[in-house]
């Protein structure tokens, strides 16, 4: 029944930023991992990626037996496609990718897809309505996947700003939503979000 944790970090059921809430002494749920002194920086020269059974496998060096790996963004807000840790299923870092651009073609595409598959954060294109009640806010938004409603607890703390114009939303369930550019929003939507900035 050993659960794995792709986040390589705490992953309480609440998820989101308030994930620490499952709090218990000693912080269980966080698997201890040793620093791996052999973790190497990889490029297309010394590593190879392939997909099998819907999972990502890596050979490093290139002629090694492919092993299943998990990707982890080290700076998920600032650099979604750079500073990527490649970990084994126990959460130990095997390799480090400084920039996805160091790979090309099919392999690069594979890495991008794998990252986007693990980090699911629909974009908010339009805000239909925001209702505020008892410190909770209820959002009704348009995403590329259709209309979605979600709930934020402690609204101000559940929205975080990365850079000038990017916003991240962390809802009560642990879902994430993004606004790539606040200024690109239509006026009505902008007015609705303004208050929380």
């Amino acid at each position, binding site marked *: 029944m050993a659960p794995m944790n*792709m986040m390589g970090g705490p*992953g309480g059921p609440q998820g*989101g930023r308030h994930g620490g809430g499952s709090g218990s002494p000693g912080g269980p749920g966080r698997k201890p991992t040793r620093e791996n002194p052999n973790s190497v920086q990889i490029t297309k020269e010394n590593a190879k990626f392939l997909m099998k059974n819907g999972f990502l496998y890596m050979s490093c060096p290139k002629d090694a037996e492919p092993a299943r790996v998990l990707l982890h963004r080290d700076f998920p807000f600032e650099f979604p496609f750079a500073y990527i840790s490649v970990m084994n299923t126990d959460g130990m870092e095997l390799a480090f990718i400084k920039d996805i651009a160091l790979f090309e073609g099919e392999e690069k595409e594979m890495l991008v897809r794998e990252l986007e598959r693990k980090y*699911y954060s629909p974009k908010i294109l339009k805000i239909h309505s925001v209702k505020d*009640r008892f410190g909770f806010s209820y959002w009704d938004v348009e995403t590329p996947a*259709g209309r979605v409603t979600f709930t934020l607890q402690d609204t101000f703390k559940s929205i975080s700003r990365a850079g000038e114009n990017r916003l991240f939303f962390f809802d009560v369930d642990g879902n*994430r939503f993004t606004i790539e550019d606040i200024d690109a929003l239509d006026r009505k939507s902008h007015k609705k979000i303004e208050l929380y900035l």
Partner: protein
Amino acid sequence: MKLTKTTTGQLFDRAKKYQPQLTNEKIVSVWEYNLDKEEPRGLKDGFVIITDDRLTVYENDTEILSDSLSNIKEFRFLSGVGCVFAECIRKDGETVLISRANAALKNRIATAIKAANHYILYGSHAFEKYFPADNVCPKCGRAYRQGSETCLNCIDTKRMAKRLWDVAKPYKWLIFASMALFVFISLLGLVTPILTRYLTNDFILSDTPETIRALDYLGVIALILLTQLASRGLSSIRNWTLVIAGNKVVHNLRGIVFEKIQRLSIARISKRTSGELMNRVSSDTARIRMFLVNQIPRLLEQILLFLVVGIAFFVYDWRLALLIILPTPLIALAFSLFRGIMGKLFRRSWERSAQSNAVLHDIFSGIRVVKSYGTEHREAQRFEAYAKAEKETQLKIETKWAWINPLLQFFISFGEFFILFYVGNAIIGGTMELADMAMFSSYAGMLYTPLQFLAGFPRQIMMAMTSVTKVFEIIDEPEDIVDAKDAKDIEIKGEVSIKNVSFGYDESVDVLRNINLDIKPGEFIGLVGKSGTGKSTLINLVMRMYEVDEGSISIDGVDIRDISQESLRSQIGVVLQETFLFNGSIYDNIAYAKKNATREEVIAAAKAAGAHSFIIKLTDGYDTYVGEKGGTLSGGERQRIAIARALLHNPKLLILDEATASLDTETEKQIQDSLAKLSHERTTIAIAHRLSTLRNATKLVVIDKGTIAEMGTHDELIEKHGIYYNLVMAQREMSKMA
């Protein structure tokens, strides 16, 4: 994208739609998922059915995967970010991805996987057991607040009001008295304008000879004075009854809440921060008091005032009354609009000031770091930035207020324009007198004040009800660790037996799996393993701080669930790595577990803990005051006091969780030896990373990844060349270097 949550019944029904021959008994686990497994942004309507012989996965109503359950070793849950995965590991070593879903389904899928694994491991169904209570309100489908099972959106206000009344009931006469006084005082307020009118009409504007009227004149003035005096006097009495009623209500409520929090298990308490709990005990109860003893009586007063003045108006002149009543909806609207705008601004300003306070707190508590890195200037700038943001919001509010306020005032005085117009006309026409004007103006004011109050009242109710809900949420919280009805008080001899115990702090992760351990009385068990492997969790379970998910723990052959908690814990001595000293003297702190301990007993315990020697060097000896953070005591000294506290009541079961970690090896050895002298009469379970700490252990238990990996004496485990051997060798390397 589907975010709604389905009930167990609905899931089962859907499963039967796919597999018509299916019965509830055959279902091992089911879950639905909503994301494409491969395509990062793709959506899918997926459904997984695990029966006692097969795993089948449907996507958009088509079967896409089917496998015999006998081929599967285990199911695994993986959390991504904003989404979760499920996969299964086949017995042939292949891993297959089963589903991907957004985080809203996280708990559902995690528990469904647990149920499936339970079946593979034990061969028995456990779906009902694992299927989580929904963390959404069944009524509106909205998620509950973290750690809460009450939906603020669907609060049954009536029920809450009734419960609130139950709390206030013992003081109902005081509250009634305050209400009556409120009403009486406002009625007195009605009298003054009448008297003023009388004064103006019959004396000031009258042409009757003054001599005859002088006495009467003084009489009216005296009456005005008297009403004023009575009104002030009664106000004082009312304030007095309010204070008494308020304090009694809040005291009562705080007592209930505090006692309840004390009874809750650690699992329930640690869901909330201590700041939040403090808020519930202090601020929320205070707000409830305000509502009960200030706002409710004021509401009644205002309604009554509105009615009385309104009726008076109608009786006197219905046309005038209509003129004044007509703009009231407009005024009410203006008020609620204004509150909407200002309310948001105030909230924002509050957030801003909270932010800059947090920064201040951060900087001050880290002042040593700031100083040692010489970053004072940078921190000053950081604070400056937040202070500036706060200033700007404040400025915005003030500016808006400066614009809105005169407008509001204009609305409030709206009625007076009508009076001016109507009464002025009437005076010119001779049907009214000048004095009427003043009286009507005062009454119009009296009519609009209640309106102002009433416009804001829904908000007050909402705020109060939020507090009421939060408070009752604590009061209603189920106690998950309760004494069984026939719970026994037993005299512990020290035999501990742990059978097939599994446990996880939350649904998705099992911290301990299938632990079996027998401890004989007087044994010294050393728990060894990397940090985070579940050692502390195991002793938490022995103390019954949490309830085991699977299996059982018994002491002297009695399941700990059948032992009363007080009896159990009072016979276990615990020393944790993080020591906590209460405000008080060293004596108070050592005697904490045994209030009537004699000085001799305390000294003996302190000696056994190696604390006596340093305590007697302190100027005030055992009477030395130590604060929450231990004041001037060093980490090791505080730890020795904590050990003395644990030893004082001579527990039959002693638990040491890294208890001597912050002591130097010399002192540790001293304490070890004194503990060893006493240890033949008690069972000891100790966790230590420094393996030398466990040199007296009769049995070592190596815990790795939540299971017992190795067990035996030091020599046996060294011979085994396993995990323990490696740990010992690594520590030897380290000490050689030192």
